[in-house]
């Protein structure tokens, strides 16, 4: 219990620190209005009769729409921009509060767009279509939203509200004199953040905090701590608690040189550090040198020196050479080259060499591997030839595997009615092990032929697909398979369809004189119903014509209840066992940033409540 108290206290202190630091950010936009509403679910603002200062103008408008996540700001209706004696009028203002540029739009005989802001730029801000749906009822459908008369938006896109009233499912709740409405975490320039505090019965208490510090063109530093407390969980087998500390700092020495440090510590006594320097010699050549100390769990620590050179040769391709060595004589190296020879023809080469210790012993493994690929792609087909080599220098084992892949892109005939696709892959493998040699090969060909849905009289539509596959290999485990799927669909009424699927598959395996094979058939009926936006469901029944017996039926029904609550059920009846196999019932609430889920499962006889971040 004491640990829970300490964890709560720590998170409270963290949250308070985070708030005190974050609210010090200066606002880039101060909105005042007769009515401002902020949705936590959608991270959006809607305002009525709003005024604000922007780009030296005093701006007023009838409606304001803001999408914080999309960085979209629209003022609508009788938009007035006043600066001294200068007054601009328009119907809509699309603006960027950070870069101080905007587009004032007038809907007259044509759509007239006027650039506003400074300095003048050619780029015109266009209205974002996703804001079309942003209305006050949309905000009020949120699980959590608030209203106020003043909102500040900071540089890091945190949203602060003043004299705020919160609404939960549309019902007025607590009021606050000042409230940080959105944390703007991902855009935060610096400071402490409490990223997550979470409790589940299966995982215990989880908290994550981070500290970020950066100065432009000088230093960038990020530290995060992830902590899990499980000591109070019943029947938990793992460690009572776990902490992960991660740190990364990069220091800009000059315009071409960067120094950096990365460190990671885990409470299971696993840690690693890395010190690196990156130097860009020209637009073509850059190098990276690093020194790393690693301490894996239950193994001796390692100290590695590494060097990497990257050559960007433009049309001559890109070359990368990298090598690392440690004090225990372990070595790894990599050579990679890629270029486009002519249009549509690409060459890739990659080779690795490693001499590393095996587990905790003093024995080494020494492996050389390489891959070469030449690929051509065109509108009609793709052709690639690959060669792969793996040479175990200690075990004297050599594997080489060339392969050729050919794919014909879907070809359509008769105005798109018929589509055909062909793929073939040929693989040859040569394995040489201490004097013994083994050679194998295989070839696989797949052909697909399908039709575009054909509209038939009386509301029917038909779709047909046939496929064939031939597999041949040296070991004579050859097989040929083929099958087809017939799909007949009938529209019964608006949003209600009845579908029938009939499929038949046959597979023949040949080995020397033996031919064995199987065939299967399936007939399914599916009734899909989506007559209204709030009602969606389907029910299916499957029948095996070969065995002449009904198989099983599935039903999936989703009904919108009120606001954004939905009832969802999954049912499964097994005709062979003659019983209901499974029933899953869900009550769902989509709340933009997360989903609340009440679940009952018949199989496990469990009732669950889930809060799932989206």
């Amino acid at each position, binding site marked *: 219990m004491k640990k829970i108290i300490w964890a709560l206290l720590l998170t409270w202190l963290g949250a308070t620190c*985070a708030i005190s630091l974050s609210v010090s950010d200066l606002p880039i936009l101060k909105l005042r209005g007769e*009515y401002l509403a902020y949705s936590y679910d959608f991270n959006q603002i809607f305002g009525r009769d709003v005024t604000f200062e922007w780009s030296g103008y005093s701006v007023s408008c009838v*409606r304001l729409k803001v999408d914080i996540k999309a960085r979209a700001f629209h003022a609508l*209706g009788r938009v007035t921009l006043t600066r001294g004696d200068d007054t601009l009028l328009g*119907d809509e203002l699309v603006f960027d509060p950070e870069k101080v540029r905007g587009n004032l739009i007038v*809907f007259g005989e044509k759509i007239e767009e006027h650039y506003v802001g400074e300095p003048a730029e050619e780029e015109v801000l266009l209205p974002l279509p996703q804001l079309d749906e942003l209305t006050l009822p949309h905000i009020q459908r949120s699980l959590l939203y608030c*209203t106020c008369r003043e909102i500040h938006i900071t540089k890091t896109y945190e949203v602060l509200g003043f004299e*705020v009233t919160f609404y939960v499912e549309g019902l007025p709740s607590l*009021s*606050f004199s000042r409230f940080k409405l959105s944390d703007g975490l991902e855009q935060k320039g610096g400071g402490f953040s409490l990223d997550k505090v979470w409790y589940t019965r299966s995982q215990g208490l989880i908290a994550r905090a981070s500290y970020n510090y950066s100065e432009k063109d000088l230093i960038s530093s990020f530290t995060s701590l992830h902590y899990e407390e499980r000591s109070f969980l019943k029947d938990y087998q793992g460690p009572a608690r776990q902490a992960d500390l991660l740190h990364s700092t990069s220091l800009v020495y000059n315009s071409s040189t960067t120094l950096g440090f990365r460190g990671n510590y885990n409470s299971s006594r696993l840690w690693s550090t890395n010190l690196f320097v990156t130097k860009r010699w020209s637009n073509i050549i850059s190098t990276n040198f690093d020194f790393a100390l690693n301490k894996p769990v239950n193994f001796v620590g390692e100290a590695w020196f590494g060097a990497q050179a990257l050559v960007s040769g433009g049309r001559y391709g890109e070359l990368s050479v990298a090598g690392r060595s440690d004090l225990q004589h372990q070595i790894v190296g990599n050579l990679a080259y890629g270029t486009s020879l002519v249009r549509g023809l690409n060459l890739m080469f990659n080779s690795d060499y490693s001499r590393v210790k095996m587990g905790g012993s003093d024995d080494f493994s020494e492996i050389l591997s390489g891959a070469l690929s030449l690929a051509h792609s065109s509108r009609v087909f793709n052709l690639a030839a690959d060669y792969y080599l793996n040479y175990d220098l200690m075990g004297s084992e050599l594997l080489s595997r060339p392969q050729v892949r050919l794919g014909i892109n879907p070809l359509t005939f008769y105005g798109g009615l018929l589509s055909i696709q062909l793929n073939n892959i040929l693989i040859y493998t040569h394995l040489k092990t201490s004097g013994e040699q083994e050679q194998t090969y295989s070839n696989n060909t797949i052909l697909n032929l399908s039709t575009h849905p054909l509209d038939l009289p009386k509301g029917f539509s038909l779709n047909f697909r046939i496929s064939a596959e031939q597999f041949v290999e040296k070991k004579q485990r050859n097989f040929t398979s083929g099958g087809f799927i017939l799909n007949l669909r009938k529209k019964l009424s608006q949003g209600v369809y009845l579908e029938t699927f009939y499929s038949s598959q046959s597979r023949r395996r040949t080995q020397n004189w033996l031919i064995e094979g199987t065939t299967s058939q399936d007939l399914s009926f599916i009734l899909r119903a989506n007559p209204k936006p709030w009602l969606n469901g389907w029910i299916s029944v499957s029948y095996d014509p070969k065995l002449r017996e009904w198989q099983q039926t599935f039903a999936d029904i989703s009904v919108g209840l009120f606001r954004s609550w939905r009832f969802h059920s999954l049912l499964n009846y097994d005709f062979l066992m003659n019983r209901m196999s499974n029933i899953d019932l869900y009550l769902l609430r989509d709340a933009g940033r997360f989903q609340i889920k009440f679940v009952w499962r018949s199989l496990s006889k469990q009732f669950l409540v889930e809060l799932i971040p989206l």
Partner: protein
Amino acid sequence: MKNVTLVLCCLYLIAGLPGCISFKVEPLPDPARILREVTLCREIDESQVLLEPGEAVTEFRSGKDPVICFLYLKDVAQEVVLKWKWYSPDKNLFKESDEAVINQEGIYLEAVTAYDRIEPEALTEHQGQWSVSIFLNDVLLTRLSFKVIPDAWQNQRLHVGRDIP
């Protein structure tokens, strides 16, 4: 110990939240005459007392689908004048609706539905990104964008695949 835990939990929930709870803040009244719904659709159900829009869409097939801009206003307590302005992809005014005067008596109406439409034939020459602006008492209420695309069947015949009879 349980009491201490409870107190600390309460402190955590109250003081840990970034702000001070205030009981003086009055909830703001909803702004009157709000736009409840604006939808672009292909059909309207006129069988009910209030009009009902069909499925909301943002793409319309040239020469096949009418473009309907449906509006649902809530809590209308005075006279309102609605107008739709349709702009083609070249940003020129394509159509301006007549002014629709609603609730001249100034009585309270719980709900008002209205729409304006463009016939499919008028779209054949103007494929691309359109927009429609809706004005309420000469003030821009909202603006929607939609796309007029070639009819799917025509599209396949003309552009998809290589015809090899």
